[in-house]
């Protein structure tokens, strides 16, 4: 039996969302210890071996910080967070990816990190645009997390956005990343 997956659709105001991503500072924040600390807390709260901040940027998702994924970016097509971005008002949760028709055949489920469980909250900037998600992931299926856990994750997401302000104002195309990431 062939298993399929569905890449997330693009938001109808994708061009505006992309502008928000470009101006967020998060694309230049790679390797920031404060962000590393935040996803460390997220993984701890959910008890998962993997956690990441994912920013949906054009045709890819970028991880300014990640634990256990072993990559700094993936194509947007295979991104779980690109699905999370489509509904910014609710946390996005997949308890067993192999039984979810959107993810069963996803390359990140079939190979690589072999994701089974995903829980994420959307990173929404001040203008209301979803930039990406703060998420925790596991290689085995899990029960749906509690509301308290999601509330804690949402609080961490706000910290990510506050931290992003420190990197803002550096256009990655005009300034070299070393200088921008200081």
């Amino acid at each position, binding site marked *: 039996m062939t298993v399929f997956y569905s890449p997330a659709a693009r938001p109808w105001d994708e061009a505006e969302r992309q502008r928000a991503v470009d101006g967020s500072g998060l694309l230049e924040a790679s390797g920031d210890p404060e962000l590393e600390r935040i996803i460390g807390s997220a993984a701890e709260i959910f008890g998962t071996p993997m956690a990441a901040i994912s920013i949906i940027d054009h045709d890819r998702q970028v991880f300014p910080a990640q634990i256990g994924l072993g990559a700094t970016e993936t194509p947007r097509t295979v991104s779980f967070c690109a699905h999370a971005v489509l509904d910014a008002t609710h946390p996005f949760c997949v308890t067993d990816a192999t039984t979810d028709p959107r993810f069963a055949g996803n390359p990140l489920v*079939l190979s690589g990190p072999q994701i089974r469980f995903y829980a994420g909250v959307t990173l929404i900037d001040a203008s209301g645009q979803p930039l990406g998600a703060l998420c925790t992931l596991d290689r085995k299926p899990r029960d749906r997390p509690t509301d308290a856990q999601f509330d804690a994750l949402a609080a961490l997401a706000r910290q990510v956005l506050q931290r992003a302000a420190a990197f803002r104002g550096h256009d990655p195309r005009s300034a070299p990343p070393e200088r921008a990431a200081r």
Partner: protein
Amino acid sequence: MTLSPPAGGQISTLFAAMAETVTRLPRRQAWLIALLMMAVVSLIDKWTGPHINLLPAYLIIVCFASWCLGERAGLAMGGCAVLLMGLINGFGRTYLMEGQELPAVAIVWNTLARLFAVTLLAGLAGGLRWALDDASWRAATDGLTGVLNRPAFSRRLGGLVEQAQRRGDALVIAYVDIDGFKGVNDTYGHAAGDTLLRQFAEATARDIRSGDLFARIGGDEFILLLTVANCQQGDVAAERLHQRMTSNLQATGHDVTCSVGALVLDSRQVSHPDRLTETADGLMYEVKRAGKNALRVARGDLQTSTEPEPFVPIPDRRQPPRIARSAA
């Protein structure tokens, strides 16, 4: 009433068989053969003298050039032939007594007669070739949209798969179904539906690369075969295709979307190209089940068991061959 295919006479079928063999000649080779034949014939013409007329031999060269290289090449060869004949054997001197001058009118008439013969033959051969090309184009094309039809798609599949296998490329086979097409037909009539299909097909044909295959397999259903560098690129190509086709459909002004089922494969997995078209039927089933505006992608390279069975397992290159090696 049914139409039966036309039957050819014995000489025509013989000529058709000959023409078919030379049709496949590469251009450079055809030029070489034409020039070589011209050189050989003119040498023989010189050697046999003005008493033997070699016009038929020259005409064969003209036909050959016109068929393989086009009417212009045929006419150019014809011009050469007329010139050579004149230079080698004169313009009708054979029938005159020694020392007698040929009247100018005879020179002109004979030259014109030769020119007429070569032009006629060049035109006939070139015209036949054009008719053949036109017929085979029509046979391969979907009459409404101008993209390939299903038999032509299947015929070209094998070559493309082999090429991908040689280069180590990955393949994307995509089945496309237009959602809401029946509504357009019912509300605005079949002419509007036809225009929608034509506009969609023309725009989509511009979006894909010239080496990719794009065919209409019936009604509002299309099939594509794309070649990509690797399977990861295949995912991206499938998503981009869905996006482009969605905006192409929006551009028609009707409330239509498309659903796409795509299978991404390492070309080395394809044991038999014919089975790829069977796979498309599986994609069709998946898309119909998934609902409107859906994009369903399967990564054949990451799955071991698949239905139907177009795959053979890729040899595992991560493990060294099983040859006992001493540690020393």
